[in-house]
């Protein structure tokens, strides 16, 4: 890629090109929310990228200083609205960490099922929008068709289709309706072959590989330095997942489950999988790998859900009830990061002895994942920039809070 570019530079040596500033956004169709990016371009080559965020800033942290922790739950839905259940879970676990509580086994299994279902939904949106950002419309329709089925399942369980407020601190107000797990399994059964279709559509698609392989390579050291987490970090070959490596309150949730962390350590994926091989052009840490890691994670989430349903049905315990609306918080602070689909979502609650937190901090995964964008986009073609942005899979609701 670099060599090709250098050659074209020499060929067009006497064609004079001026630097030009191009404004992308704040409502550019290939951005994931209201993001504005200013590109300094020299012909087709981007020399500098400046992201401007904050268009969706809704003072989420300030609002939290006026509400009790249970009242605040609906606001967490509006952070990463594509994975609202995972946001609820992160908030619930942080509150439980501060209160020093643990939930029952049955509640824990329900949480695993719900969180992993939402992870699939979020990764489907990521895959679909990736296609859309590269100019192909079909993947978007196909992934949204599947996501719709998950959203239907969630609607059945809590009544909402986007902002669920279901996984409350302490437990849930009501368990799933009768027959829900059967429908959940039916969804997984019909989803299995669809994954192959999606792989045929994008993963091994020659145009897709050409657009994403060796584009926006994020080396592991840089990913760690910028605080990138989730699939973005794992695609750079760092074997790190809070569901396995996090604090006890996160890892206990997945006790007894068998699954794998997907990361191409040493350039190889952990398992022999039936999906397309890594194309020779792809480099660990590039946009293609970020896409592929998500696609393989979807399969792991399906394993987890199947195990969860089995464990949930075998458990004769009770589901826990949520904490009181005006539950008093102890003095002290608790910070917890959980593995949300887009990366490590962190909440910090400072309690002062009353029911309302003194201060709440939201550490956003997308905020950190987008911050290396200026480094990744230096020297790429303008058309590669949406590809890199799409591969980072950001949600502006979470970045701007």
């Amino acid at each position: 890629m670099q060599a090709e570019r250098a050659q074209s530079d020499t060929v067009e040596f006497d064609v004079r090109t001026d630097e030009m500033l191009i404004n992308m956004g704040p409502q550019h169709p290939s951005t994931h929310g209201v993001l504005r990016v200013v590109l300094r371009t020299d012909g087709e080559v981007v020399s500098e990228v400046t992201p401007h965020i904050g268009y969706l800033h809704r003072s989420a942290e300030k609002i939290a200083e006026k509400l009790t922790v249970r009242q605040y739950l609906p606001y967490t839905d509006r952070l990463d609205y594509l994975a609202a259940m995972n946001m609820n879970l992160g908030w619930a676990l942080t509150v439980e960490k501060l209160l020093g509580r643990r939930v029952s086994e049955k509640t824990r299994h329900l949480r695993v099922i719900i969180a992993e279902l939402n992870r699939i939904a979020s990764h489907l949106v990521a895959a679909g929008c990736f296609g859309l950002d590269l100019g192909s419309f079909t993947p978007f329709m196909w992934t949204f068709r599947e996501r719709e089925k998950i959203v239907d399942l969630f609607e059945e369980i809590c009544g909402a289709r986007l902002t669920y407020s279901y996984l409350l601190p302490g437990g849930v107000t009501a368990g799933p309706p009768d027959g829900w797990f059967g429908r959940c399994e039916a969804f997984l059964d019909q989803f299995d072959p669809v994954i192959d279709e999606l792989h045929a559509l994008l993963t091994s698609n020659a145009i897709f590989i050409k657009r994403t392989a060796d584009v926006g390579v994020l080396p592991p050291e840089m990913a760690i330095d910028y605080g990138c987490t989730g699939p973005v970090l794992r695609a750079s070959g760092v074997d790190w997942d809070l569901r396995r490596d996090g604090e006890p309150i996160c890892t206990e949730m997945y006790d007894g489950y068998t699954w794998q962390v997907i990361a191409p350590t040493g350039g190889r994926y952990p398992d022999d999988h039936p999906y397309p091989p890594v194309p020779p052009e792809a480099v660990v840490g590039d946009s293609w790998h970020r896409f592929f890691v998500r696609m393989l994670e979807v399969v792991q989430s399906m394993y987890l859900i199947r195990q969860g349903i089995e464990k949930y049905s075998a458990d004769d315990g009770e589901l826990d009830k949520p904490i009181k609306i005006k539950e008093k918080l102890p003095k002290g602070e608790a910070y917890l990061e959980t593995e949300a689909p887009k990366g490590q979502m962190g909440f910090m609650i400072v309690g002062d002895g009353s029911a309302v937190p003194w201060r709440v901090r939201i550490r956003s995964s997308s905020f950190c994942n987008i911050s290396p964008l200026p480094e990744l986009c230096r020297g790429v073609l303008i058309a590669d920039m949406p590809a890199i942005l799409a591969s980072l899979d950001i949600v502006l609701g979470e970045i701007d809070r």
Partner: protein
Amino acid sequence: MNARNIYDLLLQPFKPWLTGHDFEAIDPWIEVGGEGLPEIARFLRDQDELAFDMLHCVTAVDYFEPDEKKAAKVQWQPYLELIYHLSSTKRRHRLVLKVKLPRWKDDRPGELPEVPSVSGVWSTADWHEREVFDLMGVRFLGHPDPRRILCPEDWEGHPLRKDYQMPTEYHGIQTR
């Protein structure tokens, strides 16, 4: 390695800058003086047995009670607290670093307190420090790009301060 061991390692080279600690808290923390922060940060990152290669989050808490009745009851004097959440992907341990700052530099309201930036040590700090400056009003000395990040560039005040007053209008738009 737990916070107590890390504290022991820091004690030798940085004793005058270590101003407090709590190893029994939910998240054990070590408090350091602001002027020693970049050196301590570099030490935490580069020492092989510490290897804190990832900075997760930089944030600040404003300990100021605007309600006068309640303020009489609280024990602490008003101050700002910076909090750095660190972890190591190599050694798999975590640490919380704190820095205590006055709410205003030299107690002159409007003069932002100052602390050295650690954006040269961890790149995560670049955007996070901009956010703390924007919302909490802390000036990070040596920051490469000290602009606001979430609020508009001409916004006045720092909204997460406890005594912040929302402006009544912004460019002719009524805000309340």
